[in-house]
């Protein structure tokens, strides 16, 4: 049930009606039923795995609360089970395929049977969310949840279960324990957020998709101009797709009276790569920081180890996105960029001249452009189906013949790119929401209608949300 389908629209309307007509104590049960149904539409395997994983996390949390002396083994067991489940469904097939390829080289074809496992929708997100829960409980940062139904409602919360944001227990469980009362202003703003997200996805991201596919999925000759447009189109598509999804998720949650955390803060305006990761997929980057980078040692064990920790963390980030070498390269590239940035900062951070320079606008503009270029370069690996396909696009970008003649076919993509760029340049922070709040109720109604009409007029052929595959 895609967020942009009629099914989801009617499902959401029904759940909103049920949520606000149910007594407050019944809200977790309503949400659990809705979440279970929502996940079931993607297949029973994913639902079964989620319910199983949630039971493991809940049991581990309860066990740690009752037997603090068993905290470590319980945590280790839960994490092994949760990550093992993810590894089995997401990486076993990849691993066996690579081993078979090695076996074929060594003269042992058919060394292992290919398991043919397909990762169910949502597995990457719910695994990380549940790991966050058990780690927080083990650290004593959050008390173990004792209400199983409420915990399942937290694990299956349908607005974010498929593609995030990855929610920490402190961000959602208290809201489920004391569901908010209806607030018309919050509801209205949530509808606006939802429609705005749909606009980003349906109008902008889907308009960019054909140009991206034309560059990345084709095998014929590719010119430099087309390759650059294709790469930037993907940079914009991914942002509109994923941040649009997040806005829809946060809007849907808001209409139900729940607040989900931010996941994007205009990331392509970042002036360095570290800042980019504080603005892009925020819930994942902070998850990686808190549960991978810091436990590895973070920056406490010397400069060289810090750089290695950054590389390792981002390699894991790459693998989390997909079991493919392209994802590993993407993660390592970001790890290397973060390490380089860190080394540069270590070198010049405290020099008075640099402090002044860093505050100047040319430095900021230059930093933003350089960061965007680096991110754009790395996205090529993220989007390409193979390293060979990534190499083809990169060769064209840097060594291909520069011909603008064929760019006419990218007209829609160029318009959408211009809109995204203008949006980044003109819309600062929460300007849209502030402007919305200043409108009269009637003008808000007109704005809703305008957004719905824009979806009607500009909807490109539908494409699935990109992050659903993770």
């Amino acid at each position, binding site marked *: 049930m895609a967020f942009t389908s*009629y099914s989801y629209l009617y499902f959401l309307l029904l759940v909103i009606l049920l949520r606000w007509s149910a007594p407050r104590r019944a809200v977790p049960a309503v949400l659990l039923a809705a979440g279970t149904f929502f996940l079931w539409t993607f297949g029973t395997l994913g639902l079964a795995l989620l319910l199983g994983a949630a039971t493991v996390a809940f049991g581990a949390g309860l066990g740690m609360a009752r037997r603090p002396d068993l905290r470590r083994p319980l945590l280790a067991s839960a994490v092994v089970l949760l990550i093992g489940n993810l590894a089995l469904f997401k990486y076993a097939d990849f691993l066996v395929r690579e081993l078979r390829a090695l076996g074929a080289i060594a003269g042992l074809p058919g060394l292992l049977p290919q398991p043919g496992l397909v990762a169910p929708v949502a597995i990457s997100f719910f695994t990380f969310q549940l790991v966050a829960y058990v780690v927080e409980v083990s650290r004593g940062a959050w008390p173990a949840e004792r209400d199983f139904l409420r915990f399942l409602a937290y694990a299956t919360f349908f607005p974010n279960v498929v593609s995030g944001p990855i929610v920490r227990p402190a961000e959602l469980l208290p809201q489920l324990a004391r569901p908010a009362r209806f607030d018309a202003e919050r509801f209205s703003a949530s509808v606006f957020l939802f429609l705005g997200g749909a606009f980003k996805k349906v109008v902008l991201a889907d308009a960019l998709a054909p140009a991206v596919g034309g560059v990345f999925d084709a095998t014929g000759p590719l010119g430099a101009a087309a390759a650059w447009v294709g790469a930037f189109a993907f940079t914009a598509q991914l942002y509109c797709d994923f941040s649009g999804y997040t806005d829809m998720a946060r809007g849907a949650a808001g209409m139900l009276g729940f607040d989900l955390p931010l996941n994007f803060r205009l990331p392509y305006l970042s002036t360095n790569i570290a800042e980019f990761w*504080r603005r892009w997929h925020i819930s994942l980057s902070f998850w990686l920081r808190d549960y991978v980078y810091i436990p590895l040692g973070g920056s406490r064990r010397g400069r060289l180890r810090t750089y290695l920790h950054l590389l390792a963390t981002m390699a894991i980030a790459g693998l989390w996105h997909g079991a493919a070498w392209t994802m590993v390269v993407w993660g390592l590239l970001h790890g290397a960029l973060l390490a380089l940035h860190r080394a540069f900062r270590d070198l010049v951070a405290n020099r008075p001249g640099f402090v002044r320079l860093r505050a100047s606008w040319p430095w900021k503009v230059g930093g933003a452009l350089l960061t965007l270029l680096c991110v754009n370069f790395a996205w090529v690996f993220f989007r390409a189906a193979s390293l060979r396909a990534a190499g083809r696009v990169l060769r064209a970008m840097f060594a291909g013949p520069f011909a603008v003649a064929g760019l006419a076919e990218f007209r829609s993509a160029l318009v959408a790119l211009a809109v995204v760029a203008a949006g980044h340049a003109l819309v600062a922070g929460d300007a849209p929401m502030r402007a919305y709040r200043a409108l009269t109720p009637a003008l808000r109604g007109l704005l809703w209608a305008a957004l719905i009409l824009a979806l009607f007029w500009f909807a490109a052929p539908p494409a699935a949300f990109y992050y659903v595959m993770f």
Partner: protein
Amino acid sequence: MTAEGRTATGEGGQGDTTSPAAAAERPGRALDLLVTVLVCLAVLAGLDVAFRTSALRGALDRENHYRLRPIEYAKLERPPDVVFIGDSRTLHALDPAAAEEALAEAGLSLSAYNLGLSGAPPMAQLALAGLALSRRPPPRVVLLFVSPYMVSTRIEPTLSRESLHTLYAWRDLPWMVAAGARVEDILDVFTSNLFRALAYRGRLVRLVFERQWPGPPAVMGEKGFQALGRVPPGVQAERARSRANGYRTELSRPAAAVGGEMLGYLDAALRRLREAGVAVAVVNTTSASALLEIYGPDSIYDEYLARVRAVCAARGVPFHDHLRNPVTTDADFTDGDHMNRDGARKYTRFVVREVVLPLLGVEPRPAR
């Protein structure tokens, strides 16, 4: 990845759009929200009503077979007694005039109508059955024409799916549910009937952005029948070979299989017609000789026949296999499966004699 920036909620900076919860700092009045919702709905409903009653909608209806079919049918002075439903193979093969002539020869003064539509599989036939039943009294006989291409999983019913909201009216929704239609398709039809402009979305977008103005009115033919002219034998043979080559991959296993979705629609159409008291039969469409060879054991043809027969048997509906029939030859086709005017005349008379008269309980007279 640094330890800067404390929480995932973006403390110390604003997001692309702030949290809706921030808006709750100023608790809102329910009345304000109601006004917002009503203004939005009024604008959308107003625009939709304006479109429904516009000349533009009329022009768009006239240019399109799918849209014009229900309009033409509603305009008929007297509802027909015998209706033929199927795809283009039916549209060009069942001549109502020839049918009426054959019925008159049997002593029956009945009218006939061809409700065939290009590319209409059972997914569309269920709506066409509803259209046939929309007039009072309903037809006495309805024949549904099917072919293996309609159920092959190799042929994505994308076009039919996109046309659902064009053909299906409110009255058809319960029958879509009975057919086991996809939830998304049912909701698409529901929403498009609620806001009619949605059913014209693709066309309106092409009109505005590609300046594709409404075309000339579609040719609907005499009583729905569209006659095709005769073509030289060489041309017919070449076209038939070409179609056979194209169809082969669409019917060959293992790439192709018999999909259950269309059979669900067929079953619902039969049930719907039977419940309305209409005499129904299902007919397997006829083809020129070049196509016969692709229905071999490696194709889905035998399974298709068996599954359709089973659906008919379950509903107590007679099934007639006209793939090989004694009246048509290659000279009666313009290609592999579309008949010319002469072929249609011969074949229609055959259909009346073999299928319609028995359904009406009339003993057919020997063929002239």
